[in-house]
């Protein structure tokens, strides 16, 4: 018994010494399957970097921005590595809160930064400096119940007009079945969905010259079609529904289509998520073929204690090799080499899925850029919701959105 105690104490002491010599990197991440995938791959990181340990502080999306913000003002950031959502990149970079990564990238052999899809990677470039490297994408796609389309003989809609007509035709409100599971909740959610309608008709919120053009005739027509969808094809209460409600409706077999994140396809096709409907979902580019792009980026706070060690983790997790393994486990890839890798096709979700995602990512566009991106999203998201709720006409909503945006941008 005495010997057992001595051995245990000795082991404990050795473990303590070992840990004391290890540097701990704290990372803030969102509570999502992507984070679980990173956790599953961590043993490989530890094997290659025995002097480092990683602590992942995962939380809901809504809690992240505030927590990251408070760390920027600390003498030393509590997070060595952060993930940054695409609307925040320019804002954080402009405020000087992120560490430039160009030198780190250049000094990392085999990193191959150009392998990232340029539309995705460019979002984290501010004034020709790289402040973040892509983690995963959440570009939206059209997800459909392929069995219903096949059974009813409907072709997959390629234009916005076709989509609206098809969704309305598929709706049977008396039976509780809807042509589209929609997320018209005020703010980010409705903008994320409705912006695809804008892009499909060539409408923009702010044009390439930085002028506010959200009240253009194309934008009005796009919003009119969106409101028509909410009225005739969406589930009741869609104007207060977010991603969760729309996903549950789709997973429960109560909707024929949804415009949602491309990585929803493998999720929906899991039996534990969709039960008897698993395997019946398919993915296509959004009607109009220009989707809203969302992505997360790895970044290092300006006041991180050990930027070198932080980069060692980022270089590993965003490397082609790790990205490939993550993709096979279900991650949404951002490297061209991964999306076109036959082994990923075979062990992941199939060639069609990855090539569709690649096609989407090449032309996808974020909702807003610049230091005021978050405010632009809120202003537009409010007025779109006003129109979808019937509280304002389409014209009034877009006029008010335009006025607010011009005031914000000093136009």
């Amino acid at each position, binding site marked *: 018994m005495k010997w057992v105690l001595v051995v245990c104490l000795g082991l404990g002491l050795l473990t303590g010494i070992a840990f004391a010599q290890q540097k701990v990197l704290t990372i803030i991440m969102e509570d999502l399957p992507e984070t679980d995938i990173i956790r599953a791959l961590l043993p490989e990181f530890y094997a290659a970097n025995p002097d480092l340990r990683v602590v992942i502080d995962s939380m809901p999306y809504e809690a992240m921005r505030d927590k990251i913000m408070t760390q920027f003002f600390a003498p030393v950031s509590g997070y060595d590595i952060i993930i940054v959502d695409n609307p925040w990149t320019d804002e954080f970079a402009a405020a000087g809160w992120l560490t430039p990564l160009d030198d780190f990238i250049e000094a990392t052999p085999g990193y191959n930064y150009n392998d990232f899809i340029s539309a995705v990677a460019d979002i984290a470039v501010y004034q020709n400096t790289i402040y973040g490297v892509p983690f995963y994408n959440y570009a939206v796609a059209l997800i459909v119940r392929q069995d219903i389309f096949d059974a009813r003989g409907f072709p997959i809609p390629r234009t916005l007009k076709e989509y609206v007509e098809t969704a309305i035709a598929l709706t049977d409100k008396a039976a509780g079945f809807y042509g589209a599971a929609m997320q018209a909740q005020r703010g980010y959610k409705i903008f994320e969905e409705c912006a695809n309608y804008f892009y499909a008709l060539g409408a923009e919120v702010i044009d390439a010259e930085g002028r506010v053009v959200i009240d253009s005739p194309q934008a009005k027509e796009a919003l009119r079609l969106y409101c028509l969808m909410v009225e005739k094809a969406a589930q009741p*209460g869609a104007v207060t529904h977010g991603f969760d409600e729309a996903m549950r409706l789709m997973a429960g077999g109560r909707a024929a289509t949804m415009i949602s994140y491309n990585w929803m396809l493998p999720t929906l096709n899991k039996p534990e998520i969709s039960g008897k409907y698993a395997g019946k979902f398919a993915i296509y580019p959004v009607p109009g073929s220009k989707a809203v792009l969302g992505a997360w980026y790895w970044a290092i706070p300006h006041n991180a204690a050990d930027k070198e060690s932080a980069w060692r983790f980022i270089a590993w997790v965003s490397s082609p090799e790790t990205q490939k393994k993550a993709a096979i486990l279900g991650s949404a890839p951002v490297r061209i080499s991964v999306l076109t890798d036959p082994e990923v096709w075979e062990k992941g979700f199939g060639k069609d899925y990855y090539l569709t995602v690649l096609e989407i990512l090449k032309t996808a566009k974020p909702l807003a850029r610049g230091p005021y991106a978050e405010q632009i999203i809120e202003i537009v998201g409010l007025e779109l919701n006003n129109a979808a709720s019937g509280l304002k006409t389409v014209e009034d909503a877009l006029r008010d959105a335009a006025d607010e945006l011009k005031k914000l941008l000093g136009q």
Partner: protein
Amino acid sequence: MKKRHLISDRILFVLPLWITVSFISIYPLISAFLTSLTDQQLVALAATKFVGANNYYAAFKDVRFLKSITNTVIFVLYAVSLEFLLGFMLALVLHRHFLRRIRGIARSLLFTPMFVTPVAVGLMFRYMLNVEYGIIPYLLRTLLGIRVDFFSPSYALFSIVLIDVWQWTPFMLLLLSAGLESLPQDCYEAAKVDGAGAFATFWYITIPLLRPIMLVAILIRMLDAFRVYEYIYTITRGGPGSATETIMYHIYQVGFRFFRMGEASSKAVVFAFVVLIFVIAIYRALRRYEEWV
């Protein structure tokens, strides 16, 4: 000599409290007020400059802010009134002699909603009231044939009121029950001897004696209701449109989503004055009633 010693002793005893209150309450208030006189933005702290009362002028012209004040006042009036009426009724019922055996267990069960965190309550009702798969709309449809979208533009704010009533009526019940049990019995005995009926006893004895407790309960609940935020954040995000945007949610958006701290601080100061006006109004109205009686 003895008097001077006593005075300095008093100051010494109170000094720790003054220092604590200064750091916790007075300094933040002054700091917030000073920030409200600037155009401070967290993304550009170095460029902060003094703008005087400009933020306040802008706040009173901000349609969304004014709408949030209206929403909040409506919410507070409905929620606190319903909570008081229901809480008082429940307190009176549970105070009846014939329920004395089950009084303890009944109160324990009724107090339960109060101990659930408001965020969890918000999430719970978000799904329970969902028009498609929520249990409450389902029961209304199947049992009564009524189809209700609880979060439509017409009903969303009132649904938030009902959620608040569900959670915080027990608070009123708690205070009013304690008040009823602390009332002196000799007044009731004297009233009985004088032949007073149940209503007269209630109106001329119970209500006046309970007034201080009622005042405290309403004031505390009102102050809390003005800060409503969790239900808005977890359920509606201020929508549909601005139907449920309250002052706290609006200030949160401006200050912590958009980082416009100068603007947010000015709106917080305006909010504090709005609350103060209500508190003073309620207090004076109840005191006037006391003088009239």
